[in-house]
């Protein structure tokens, strides 16, 4: 249990690993947000085909473990594409990981946004429509801003989940923090110190996200007291 030793030997690689963790989290969340928004709009669309596409996507993601998805995208999918389209096709662990995390977070964000939209008073849409705004413009200008505000806590929660889910991507060899830790403890046997430090990395970032959440909620208060 030699923290000094672990600090000296492992901090550089752990910090790099954590940087990788944060990087893939942020990139995935960025794509997931748009994916989620599109899936949510499909899901609430009048067109049945669009609704089915969204429901199929959400069903698929929710119904399979992320580890299996990661293996599938990293190893399975390239095999199929090599066979059918392009024989040299490959994905890096980072690309495959980002795809899996985006698809996952996207499915959950779609449901979060749907809940947010449903929580907006139906009178808002009626007011916007009665002013002559089209359905899509009303959605964009009136409903979505309110739905997003309502969804902030759940969206931050999903960001935290995605951050933690990156550790699963270590299974396909992405050199994020858990992967780096495994390598280091294999050599040094410093389990306690190493994993304590890792936990602190995660905690620090999650705390940051929580602050961001309350800051955003306050910023978007629109004259609400307190």
């Amino acid at each position: 249990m030699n923290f000094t030793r672990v600090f000296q030997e492992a901090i550089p690689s752990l910090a790099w690993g954590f940087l990788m963790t944060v990087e893939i989290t942020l990139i995935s969340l960025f794509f997931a947000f748009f994916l989620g928004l599109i899936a949510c709009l499909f899901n609430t669309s009048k067109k049945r085909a669009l609704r089915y596409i969204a429901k199929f996507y959400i069903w698929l993601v929710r119904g399979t473990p992320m580890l299996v998805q990661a293996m599938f995208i990293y190893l399975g999918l390239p095999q199929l594409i090599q066979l059918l389209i392009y024989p040299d096709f490959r994905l890096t662990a980072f690309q495959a990981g980002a795809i899996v995390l985006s698809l996952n977070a996207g499915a959950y964000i779609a449901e979060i946004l749907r809940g947010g939209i449903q929580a907006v008073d139906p009178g808002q849409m009626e007011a916007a429509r009665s002013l002559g705004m089209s359905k899509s413009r009303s959605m964009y200008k009136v409903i979505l801003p309110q739905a997003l505000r309502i969804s902030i806590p759940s969206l931050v929660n999903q960001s935290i989940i995605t951050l933690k889910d990156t550790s699963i991507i270590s299974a396909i060899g992405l050199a994020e923090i858990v992967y780096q830790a495994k390598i280091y403890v294999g050599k040094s046997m410093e389990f306690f110190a190493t994993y304590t430090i890792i936990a602190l990395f995660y905690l620090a970032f999650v705390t940051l996200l929580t602050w961001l959440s309350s800051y955003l909620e306050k910023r978007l208060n629109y004259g609400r007291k307190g």
Partner: protein
Amino acid sequence: MEEKVKVRGLHKYFGDLEVLRGIDLDVYKGDVVCIIGPSGSGKSTFLRCLNMLEQPTHGEVTVDGYLLTKKHAQIDKIRQNIGMVFQQFNLFPHLSVLQNIMLSPVDCKLLTKTEAEDVARKLLARVGLAEKADEYPRQLSGGQQQRVAIARALAMNPDVMLFDEPTSALDPEMIGEVLAVMKDLAEDGMTMIIVTHEMKFARDVADRVIFMDGGVIVEDGSPMQIFDETKEDRTKKFLGMVM
């Protein structure tokens, strides 16, 4: 006289429930029509059929010479010409008072931002809320919110204004300020259809009063004909209960 609203044979079903059972109505430019009647008689549904917030099951609705009930009617375009004021105000809580009023004229490209702001400030002054431009709806009283909602509808420069119980959600001391704005609008020549429980307002301001019951228009006449000279039992009974 120019006909603003024409309704013929309007029926509306919710599932098996027939809420409107054949309504005919003609409203001319500058008319102020108050609709009264018991709860559940279909007043709101009727009003909402006039701007297609509810889809009529049968019948024709024509506003400003344009048949709304035809297939592929350009409903968004028509609605720009029909203002609506709701019982619950329905202001946009994430936008300031000024932004609430400017949103639709700018978004529908009727006005530039600068023009819209100019119009919005004038309308706010007209409803007596010039100094509230930068506040959010939440910071206003109910009466103030409803006056902003009226200004918001007016910003589209509509030909017809629909009001669905605009004062029913208000504390009694705020009803007067909203009715005053509506009266001002009526005197200015706006064509208005108002569902209301304010009998005194209907008597003072309306050109015509319509009594609805059970999804039909039971009586349609001048305030004096309805309030003082009615021969209809159903009207008498209703007025007896509310006055």
